[in-house]
């Protein structure tokens, strides 16, 4: 008898929950970049603690993965916001349009420098973008000077550039779902590839081949795809002094006692150098919101307001404490205005 009542109660619970499962959503659902994740979570927490709305739920999926989920459609089962560490691509925008996500609000929130860092236990690296390209590209120009490609033979940094130390090339970096990867190949690898005359010339002749040369990262183990989790990379760098990691400046800032940034093209990655554009590798951070959801999902417009307030993204805001580099005043003002008027993204 006891057993039967228990079974009955169990079934009852299922029934009750089955009933509520299809109930409405009353919290904001956010996906996207792991680089923006630490900033978005701080805003979400502030938002949840200072308003009567529920704290948004945030999953870290990478910029690309987030876009894919975001563009899947309009409705409660799809996320309201996706964070991105790069601008939305035309192909993604088209996909969004095709799935009925027509009105998108684009918000640029600030800048992040991409740093190459290693453990403080070893000495800092002085690299140029060309060095990085030659160390990490899948195929590199023949060292003899002929205009053809050979599979990357370099095993140590010394092979790449005699001025560099004789240690194995071991770079921990993000996979293609990550916006950091996109920005890295565009800013660093392409920037390095361009330094080689005939590759640069190719850009005009055969853009596709040019891109393939510059953007393809070697797969023989020198470049290790370390997943979306930048934190893990930091821990692994600490354990392995020879390895170099690629991630956003905020992670360097948080862990400045154990890792140090490599000097790229003669500039050290500091807050100031990134903010005034001296450091060659910095990229803007964005988030995208579905306009159709504003006014439908409780708290969404208030969240947008919180994110775009001075106390969040201003010079003295709490996001800068986390290592985000704020936009100049004029740009912030314009973005704030875009949020207020819900300016539609056009491409």
């Amino acid at each position: 008898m006891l057993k039967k009542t228990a079974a009955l109660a169990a079934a009852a619970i299922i029934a009750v929950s089955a009933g509520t499962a299809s109930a409405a959503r009353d919290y904001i659902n956010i996906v996207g970049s792991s680089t923006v994740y630490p900033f978005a979570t701080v805003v979400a927490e502030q938002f949840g603690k200072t308003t009567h709305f529920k704290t948004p739920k945030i999953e870290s999926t990478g910029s690309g993965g987030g876009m894919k989920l975001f563009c899947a459609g309009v409705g409660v089962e799809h996320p309201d916001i996706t964070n991105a560490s790069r601008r939305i691509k035309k192909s993604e925008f088209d996909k969004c349009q095709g799935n009925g996500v027509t009105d998108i609000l684009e918000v640029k929130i600030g800048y992040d420098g991409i740093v190459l860092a290693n453990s403080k236990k070893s000495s800092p690296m002085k690299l140029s973008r060309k060095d990085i390209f030659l160390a990490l590209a899948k195929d590199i120009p023949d060292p003899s000077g002929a205009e053809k490609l050979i599979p990357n033979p370099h095993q140590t940094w010394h092979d790449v550039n005699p001025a560099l130390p004789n240690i194995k090339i071991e770079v921990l970096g993000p996979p293609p779902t990550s916006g950091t990867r996109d920005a890295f190949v565009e800013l660093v690898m392409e920037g390095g590839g361009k330094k080689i005359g005939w590759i640069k010339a190719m850009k005009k002749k055969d853009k596709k081949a040019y891109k393939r040369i510059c953007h393809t990262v070697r797969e023989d183990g020198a470049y290790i795809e370390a997943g979306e989790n930048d934190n893990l990379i930091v821990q692994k760098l600490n354990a392995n002094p020879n390895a170099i990691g690629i991630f956003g400046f905020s992670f360097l800032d948080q862990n400045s006692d154990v890792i140090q940034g490599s000097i790229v093209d003669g500039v050290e990655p500091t807050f100031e150098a990134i903010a005034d554009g001296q450091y060659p590798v910095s990229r803007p951070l964005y988030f995208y919101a579905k306009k159709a959801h504003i006014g439908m999902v409780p708290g969404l417009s208030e969240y947008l307001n919180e994110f775009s307030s001075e106390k969040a993204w201003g010079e003295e805001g709490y996001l800068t404490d986390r290592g985000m580099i704020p936009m100049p005043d004029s740009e912030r003002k314009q973005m704030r205005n875009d949020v207020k008027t819900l300016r539609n993204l056009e491409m």
Partner: protein
Amino acid sequence: MSTTFIISLLLGLSIAGYFFGYRRSITLASPIGGVKNLHSRPAYYGMLVALWCGLPTFIIFLVWQSLEPSIISSLMIADLPLDYQNLPKNQLGLIINDIKNLATGNIVAGEKNAIMHAAANHYVQLQILSKWIKGGALLVLGLITLIIVCRRITPEQRARNHVEKIIRIVLFCCSTIAILTTLGIILSVLFESIRFFKAVPITDFLFGLKWSPQTAIRADQVGSSGAFGAVPVFIGTMMISAIALFIAVPIGLMSAIYLSEYAGKKFRTIAKPLLEILAGIPTVVYGFFAALSVAPFIRQTGGLLGLDVSSESALAAGLVMGIMIIPFVSSLSDDVINAVPQSLRDGSYALGATRSETIRNVVVPAALPGIIGGILLAASRAIGETMIVVMAAGLSARLTANPLETVTTITVQIVTLLVGDQEFDSPKTLAAFALGLLLFVATLILNVIALVVVRKYREQYE
């Protein structure tokens, strides 16, 4: 009328049914000379009424409950103005979400127009109406069955057999859940795997030597080449499992021998539960331990010896996994060693063998099939272990036999491919299911062999 109220109402009705049935059987029994002349004891008559009145109403309740939301939603949509109804499906979904938020008194996003307020009111009314109808209908149905079953009670009625039959059916239904689970696993993994094998030939997957699944996810992106050869992943899994077994089998086996053949009762009662704690520690804790304590330690030690140890060496993950499976090996071996008949030992002692000679030459060979079965089960556990390798092993799939290098495993790849990305259209995500299938089949084979071996062995001595 809330849902909990309806449930308690049905429960109350059942209990009432029990008492009515009980009383009715006793009233029927008094003219024929007391309870002893009934076919069954009065409680069974009560139970019969209770079951008849509880089960059907409850099933109807479940069905109603699962259909209710969609029916109410569609009724509400039908009453919305036409220009709302003609909106695209997903936008309509959003508006419905909003109306529901409005109706449940939830925080509502912004200003709402009169139409939505009306719809929300309508929605609430429909919900209340549905609850009343549901409650009323179920109550009436319950009462009717109660009366009918009650009235049909006769002293000759075989109430006990009837009740027992119902219970038996319920028991049987429960036992099929295990089958359904396996079926669910096979189907869910198989379907997605078949879709994957349409994109990537199965031979490429099984025999390919290159694993590089992070394909470009956009048309204008250059990702990795997208090779889906599972061999390096499989080799990595095997290597970590082999290291784990290399640690766990000697330690586990020797512990089992010592505990069952040598240790005093006191030592045994303390040591055995302590050993079993090792099996009870969550794997995420082992992962944390491996990543933060063991891996750096191995790296440093390797550095002192002049070895180049990767920070995510297979050795670290394998070592910690070995610690985890010690108790699997030891407790299974303990069981089979204890099952070896004492007569075999006595015979050996009588011939003048020492204890260790008896153990090595008589007990272990006799228990060998069981021990092997235990080791196979431990191996299957090691292959399927996830958290330790996710936290302590690497992601780069390479073909290597050096335990100081990084390898990746099937479970690590499943987690990295699936966490976050929930789309089901690219070979990348589908590959996770193919790996899952591979994992399921591999462990299934190990388990079945182990189970057969152990069973054969048990039969031998029973």
